[in-house]
């Protein structure tokens, strides 16, 4: 259960140098690369990939922002510059399949890159985990027991409403034998954490409450032991909310990948 990785994460450049091709590219994303909290999720996704023996690679320092926050903020120029540069890298490596650690990267590469010349099969890491569970490659054994724990899952907008992915993350939690509880506003009716649309990078407009507080109050109503997330930005917003409500001793905020890693003792 060490935080540190006891294996090397392969990069595309290394694989190509060895004349090999990965089955899947893991697109880490900016939050997953730089944000300390999200880095943990990134390492856990790698642990899962390593554990099941999928041949994967990351771009490492060749990766750059997908351009998502620029696009949502209205800077289409910057978005397309980023997109086309990334597409050039991805196409040069002949990438076919991508798993992302972030719903925003997922949405952008899956939906907005094809029109600019970058067509790949793109899945979010919760979908990968679900597939691995379905294929029997991943179980919830050998690690921490979640039996009887109350877990509530917060739908990231760009995974849920944005792309209709509601079941995969829930399936990943169902194998835990935990008690899954839904918030009042869930699935297609889920409430945003407050970070989308480039809000992550600015102060909120004047109002009477922060959106993440509204959300965290709803999450706490379910009296959870764990709030599950699938997005690094939601992770930040919800963790902040839990801290502000002085609940960080009682409630853990964990990414689906982290939960999976813990359950399997990876």
């Amino acid at each position: 259960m060490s935080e540190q990785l006891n294996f090397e994460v392969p990069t595309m450049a290394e694989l190509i140098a060895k004349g090999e091709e990965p089955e899947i590219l893991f697109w880490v994303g900016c939050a997953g690369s730089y944000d300390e909290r999200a880095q943990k999720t990134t390492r856990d996704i790698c642990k899962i990939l390593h554990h099941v023996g999928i041949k994967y690679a990351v771009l490492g320092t060749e990766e750059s922002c997908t351009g998502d926050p620029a696009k949502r903020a209205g800077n289409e120029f910057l978005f397309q510059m980023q997109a086309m540069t990334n597409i050039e890298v991805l196409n040069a490596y002949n990438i076919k399949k991508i798993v992302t650690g972030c719903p925003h990267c997922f949405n952008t590469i899956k939906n907005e890159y094809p029109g600019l010349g970058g067509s790949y099969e793109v899945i979010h890491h919760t979908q990968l985990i679900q597939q691995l569970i379905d294929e029997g490659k991943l179980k919830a054994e050998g690690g921490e027991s979640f039996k009887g724990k109350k877990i509530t899952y917060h739908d990231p907008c760009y995974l849920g409403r944005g792309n209709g992915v509601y079941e995969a993350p829930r399936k990943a939690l169902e194998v835990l034998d935990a008690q899954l509880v839904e918030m009042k506003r869930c699935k297609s009716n889920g409430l945003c954490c407050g970070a989308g649309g480039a809000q992550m990078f600015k102060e909120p407009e004047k109002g009477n409450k922060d959106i993440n507080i509204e959300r965290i109050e709803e999450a706490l109503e379910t009296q959870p032991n764990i709030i599950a997330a699938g997005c690094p930005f939601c992770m930040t917003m919800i963790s902040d909310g839990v801290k502000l409500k002085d609940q960080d001793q009682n409630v853990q905020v964990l990414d689906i990948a982290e939960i999976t890693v813990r359950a399997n003792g990876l």
Partner: protein
Amino acid sequence: MIAQIVFIAITLAAIALFSYNIKKVIRNIQLGKSADRSDQPHKRLMTMLKVAFGQTKMFFRPIPAFLHLIVYAGFVIINIEVVEILIDGIFGSHRIFSGLGFIYDFLIGSFEILAFGVWLGCAIFLIRRNVIKLKRFSGVEMTKWPRSDANYILISEILLMTAFLLMNAADAKLQALGAHHYTNAGAFPISQYLQNVLPNSEGALVAIERGCWWFHIIGILAFLNYLPYSKHFHILFAFPNTYFSNLEPKGEFTNMKSVTNEVKAMLDPSFTPEEAEPGRFGAKDVNDLTWVNLMNAYTCTECGRCTSVCPANITGKLLSPRKIMMDTRDRMEEVGKNIDKTGNGFDDGKSLIDSYISREEIWACTSCNACTEACPINIDPLAIITELRRYAVMEESQSPASINTMLGNIENNGAPWKYSPADRFNWAKES
């Protein structure tokens, strides 16, 4: 004979006025830029049937959905009766379809039950708006006119249904009296209870029957002509609006072709761009939006489902997706009136952004798509907000300072934060 002439004249005048106004509405929608929504006709048709005709998205809120379904079904089905009224009006006949026998009885009987349902539904809607004062029907954009508009519609529907039922009650009574011209036809499961309140004299009954008949048909024609001035346009526009609605994943924003051309030319000097529509980047005013955005604005019923689920609005921010749609429509109508008065190219010094929608509103959006998900007829306020942001950022370079910092970071470091690209892979090495 005079009655027939008057009837034909009124009907023709109503249709002419409606056509005149509809033409203006279509002209206004065409102020928008082109957008291709001709793909996947089968899927579009299915979306329209499901969402507009089947009202599937209404059922997230079962109580208003049920009431709305009754009013909708009643209103549509009772309009079959209008066909009879039109024929009777033109030819001076009375209950021309009565020859259908028991089918006619069944139809009239069903219309009565539906009419009563509509009456009740509208009454409950009025109570929800004016007595219970549901929060969804208030907000900064719900000024006097939008609130009155809603009440006028509900009251007119109640009056129309009352006239329809009174007409039938008087007719049935005249039938029983054996009055000339009033053939025995129809079943009156509801209006039979109204017969007691009516007088017994034949003259008075004929006056009431005729009065209600004229009120009903003139009322319907007036209602038709009220639509272009009202939020109630959705009864027509819901169908094209859902047919032409966005079929792509909600998370996907359009890629701007004009930008693609410039970026490609920048990266590859030998690139020759395809034809792209000229104009500014993003939207300053309604004519920078697409016709779909503008049709959305005419379709909006101001029900407020979007605003009631908007995270920004819920937490007290200025943004209200309903206001975005109402502002777009108001501005479009204003531009239309300017064109009527002074022809194309007149600049009144106003624009959709700033004169109607403030910067504070557009920057409060989290692009979470709760509004587009909630809209029962697939209106997309987010598309308009995005275009306004594009204008603010690309044409004016006016965005909140922190957004500028984020954009600068992406440009320089390939990440929205100020970290070195060389450190991007450090997560694999540290603990």
